[in-house]
C-alpha cells in the first residue's frame, strides 16, 4: 500500500497530465448530452468544494454557509448579465468580487469565533442571504427566480453548446486546482495549516491569525462566487432554493467524504457523490436511503475520507529522502 502511494506520489505530474487528458477526451467518449451535463456539474462542484476546502480543510474553520457565496456570485452574474448585458469577463469578476466582499464583511467580526460557533454563524448567514434573495423582489425577483440568463460571451464568441461549457469548466477547474495548490504549498499555506492545528501556537509563531483567516475566507468565497457565476449562466435560471443550507451541507459532505485538505480527494469525492444518486436512480424511492447508508458506511470504513491523511507531497519527500539515504 505504502509503496503504491509512494509510486503515485513520485509520478504526480504524469498522473495529473493523464487525468487532464482523460478529462479532455471525456466528451468524445461519452458524447451524450446527459453525460456531458453531469460532467460539467461535477466540474462546477469541484471548484466549489476546492474553495471550501481552503477555509475548512486547510485552515480548519468549519463553514456551513458556502452556498451563500455561491448564491451571491450567481445572483451578481445573473443580474449584471440580464439587466446590463455585461459580458462574462465582467459578470464573473464582479461575482467573485461581490462574494469576496460579503465574506470580508462577515468574516472580519466573526472569524474569531471557534468551531461550532462559527459553523452556526455561517449557517445563519447562508439562511439570511437566501431570505434576502427570496424577499428582495426588486433586485432578485424573489422566489420567481431569474430566467433567461444569457450564456457567457466575449467579443462575439458565445459559450453555448454543452461541450463548450464543459471545456470552459475544465479550464476553471484546472485554474482552481493550480491556485489552491500554489497557496497551500507556500509559506502562506503552511501558516493556514498551522492555524488549523493549533491557533495559539500559530499565533506564537508570528502568524496574524485573524488576517489569515479573513484572507482565506475571502479567497474561498470569491472562488465560490466564480462558480456561482458559471452556474447562473450555464443553467440560465436561478432561484433562491439552489443556495440554501442544504446546498452548503452537501458541499461540506463532499469535502469530508473525499478527505479534508486533499485536492485529489476532493475531486474524487465530488465525482463519487455527484454520480452516486444518478447511479442509484434505478432504485427509485430507496435511493436516498441507500445514499445515506453509503455515507454512514464510508465514515465507518474510512472516517478520514477517501484520501484524507494522505499527503502526497510529504510521501514524496519521505520517499526521496529514503532513496537519497540508500545511495549514501
Amino acid at each position, binding site marked *: 500500500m505504502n509503496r503504491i502511494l509512494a509510486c503515485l506520489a513520485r509520478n504526480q505530474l504524469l498522473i495529473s497530465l493523464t487525468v487532464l487528458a482523460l478529462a479532455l477526451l471525456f466528451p468524445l467518449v461519452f458524447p451524450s448530452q446527459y453525460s456531458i451535463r453531469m460532467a460539467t456539474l461535477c466540474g462546477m462542484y469541484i471548484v466549489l468544494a476546492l474553495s471550501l476546502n481552503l477555509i475548512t480543510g486547510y485552515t480548519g474553520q468549519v463553514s456551513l454557509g458556502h452556498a451563500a457565496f455561491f448564491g451571491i456570485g450567481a445572483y451578481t452574474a445573473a443580474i449584471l448579465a440580464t439587466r446590463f448585458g455585461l459580458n462574462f469577463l465582467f459578470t464573473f469578476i464582479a461575482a467573485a468580487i461581490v462574494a469576496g466582499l460579503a465574506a470580508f464583511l462577515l468574516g472580519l467580526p466573526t472569524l474569531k469565533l471557534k468551531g461550532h460557533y462559527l459553523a452556526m454563524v455561517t449557517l445563519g448567514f447562508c439562511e439570511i442571504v437566501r431570505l434576502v434573495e427570496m424577499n428582495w423582489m426588486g433586485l432578485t425577483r424573489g422566489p420567481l427566480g431569474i430566467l433567461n440568463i444569457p450564456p457567457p460571451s466575449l467579443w462575439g464568441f458565445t459559450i453555448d453548446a454543452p461541450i463548450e461549457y464543459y471545456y470552459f469548466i475544465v479550464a476553471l477547474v484546472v485554474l482552481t486546482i493550480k491556485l489552491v495548490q500554489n497557496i497551500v504549498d507556500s*509559506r502562506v499555506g*503552511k501558516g493556514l*495549516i498551522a492555524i488549523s492545528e*493549533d491557533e*495559539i501556537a500559530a499565533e506564537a*509563531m508570528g502568524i496574524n491569525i485573524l488576517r489569515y483567516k479573513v484572507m482565506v475566507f475571502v479567497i474561498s468565497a470569491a472562488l465560490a462566487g466564480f462558480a456561482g457565476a458559471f452556474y447562473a449562466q450555464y443553467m440560465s435560471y436561478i432561484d433562491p432554493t439552489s443556495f440554501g443550507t442544504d446546498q452548503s451541507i452537501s458541499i461540506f459532505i463532499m469535502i469530508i467524504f473525499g478527505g479534508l485538505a486533499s485536492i485529489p480527494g476532493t475531486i474524487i469525492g465530488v465525482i463519487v457523490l455527484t454520480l452516486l444518486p444518478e447511479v442509484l436512480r434505478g432504485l427509485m424511492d430507496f435511493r436516498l436511503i441507500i445514499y445515506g447508508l453509503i455515507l454512514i458506511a464510508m465514515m465507518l470504513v474510512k472516517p478520514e475520507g477517501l484520501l484524507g491523511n494522505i499527503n502526497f507531497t510529504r510521501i514524496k519527500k519521505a520517499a526521496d529522502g529514503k532513496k537519497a539515504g540508500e545511495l549514501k
Partner: protein
Amino acid sequence: MKPLLGIERVTQRFGGLVAVSNVSFQIFENEIIGVIGPNGAGKTTLFNIITGIYKPTEGKVMYDEGNIAGFRPHEITQSGLARTFQNIRLFQNMTVLENVLVGMHTRTKANLFDAVFRTGRLKKEQLEATQKAEYYLRLVDLYEHRHSAAKNLPYGSQRKLEIARAMASEPRLLLLDEPAAGMNEQETAELMEFIGKLKALGYTILLIEHDMKLVMNICERIIVFDHGCLIAQGEPEVIKKEPKVIEAYLGKEA
C-alpha cells in the same frame, strides 16, 4: 547597559486569584536567566504575559524600550521574542520540518501574490528556508526525523522540536518553559550543553525549570517566584543559600 527586557510592576489577576503580583526585573543581552518557584507560583503566567497571550492587569513589559504589554502574540514574535510551551503545542499533524518552517514565518516574506503566481522570489525563499530549517533540525538532532509527523515523536523529542521551532523565528530573546521536563538525566545534560551553545550564538535566554542541576549549572542569574511574588533574585550560589528559597522551594538538602 540598557536591558533587553524590562518587567515593570506587572500584576496579573484571574478573578480573585493573583497569579503574578507586582513583579519587576530586567534581562540584559546574552544572559541566561532561570525562573524557579513552586508549582503555581506564576512562572508560566509571566511567560504568557511577556509573549502576549495575556494582557497584564497592571504594569509594563518593556522590550527594546517600547511597552509591548497588550500586543498580540504575533506582533511580539515579529519583534524578536520566541517561546516554547510547558504543555507541548506542536503542529501535531505537520511534519517535523514543516513545524520549523512555520516557525520561520516572521522571517520569510513571500505573500499571497508570490504564492499564487509562484514567483522567483517565492522559490528562492522556499529553498533557503528549507535549508535553514534543516540546519536547526540538525542542531537539535532531529534531522533524521524531518519527514515524520510531529505527533509521532516521543515526548522528549517533541520538546527539542519546540526549541528548534522557536529558534527558527530568529529571536533575540528565547523563552523556554521547562525544556528539560520529560528528559532523563543524560538527555538533560545534552540539553544543557545545547543551551550553552545557544548563548555562544548570541541568544538571550529566559528559562523556567524545576531541574535544579540544570538551573544552577547554566543560569547566570536566577529569579525566584512564590505565590506570584518575586521573592529573590541573584546568582545561583546566592540563591541556593537563600533561606526563603530553601523553605519555599528547594527543601532542606538541596
